[in-house]
């Protein structure tokens, strides 16, 4: 366990260093955008957190399916850990979005399709965590969460496609099959930020899984003590 812990610690420091490098790329290396000015720099970590929220909920979806097929607690542990991190990233998206919108659009919030579906996504996974905690019995809890995790994921592609399906204020995607509407320096800053946040997600997931496993061990030891 110690050895695994030291690997996690090393990954944590590596991620912290990468976050600092990412800040350099965002604030120094990437040029100032012509229309929006410096506030456009919000884009890099806003997109990085959004991408990782999607990734986290995709992991919940896959782990929930695996749990329903196998019944193994290990998939449930990864699912609940990933859901918690996904909620944190979505919260950050919902905070940085309005902070970017206020100076650019003149408003904090609008019921645009992308914003609304993202808020719904946040509510779905907060409900996942709250309701999960309310269900009694580990197996029922895991089964309920797995079904909820699979159904809840339906909103992720809707959030992604919302800017194509409905007209709104949220900007279009900058990287599409028809081209990239970013300067090469901006693209480097964006890719580096997304990769750094993906590594951050992996690190937080490992930390959260370790905590959940320890909680399981405590539960087993208490059970054993009661039966002794």
């Amino acid at each position, binding site marked *: 366990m110690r050895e695994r812990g030291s690997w996690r610690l090393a990954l944590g420091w590596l991620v912290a260093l990468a976050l600092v490098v990412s800040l350099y790329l965002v604030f120094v290396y990437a040029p100032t955008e012509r229309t929006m000015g410096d506030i456009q720099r*919000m884009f890099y970590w806003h997109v990085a957190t959004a991408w990782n929220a999607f990734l986290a909920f995709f992991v919940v979806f896959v782990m929930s399916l695996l749990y329903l097929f196998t019944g193994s607690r290990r998939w449930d542990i990864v699912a609940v850990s990933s859901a918690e991190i996904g909620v944190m990233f979505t919260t950050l998206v919902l905070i940085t979005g309005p902070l970017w919108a206020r100076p650019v659009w003149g408003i904090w919030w609008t019921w645009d399709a992308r914003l609304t579906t993202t808020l719904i996504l946040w509510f779905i996974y907060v409900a996942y965590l709250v309701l999960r905690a309310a269900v009694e019995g580990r197996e029922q809890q895991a089964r309920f969460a797995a079904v909820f995790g699979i159904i809840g994921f339906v909103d992720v592609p809707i959030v992604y496609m919302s800017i194509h399906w409905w007209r709104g204020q949220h900007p279009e995607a900058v990287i599409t099959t028809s081209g990239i509407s970013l300067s090469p320096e901006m693209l480097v800053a964006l890719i580096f930020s997304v990769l750094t946040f993906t590594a951050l997600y992996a690190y937080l997931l490992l930390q959260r899984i370790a905590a959940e496993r320890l909680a399981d061990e405590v539960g087993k030891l208490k059970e054993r003590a009661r039966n002794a």
Partner: protein
Amino acid sequence: MDGNLIYLFVGYSLIWVALLVYNQSLVRRQLKLEREVEALKRVGRSQ
């Protein structure tokens, strides 16, 4: 740099604070559980 820097500063600061607080909470949760595991194992051995 323009006048909208305060929004940028608040946005990036909030992300840093959220990540640090969440990471700290995970580390503390682990330490607390590790101590609990050790204590329960000690009790188990003494019985």
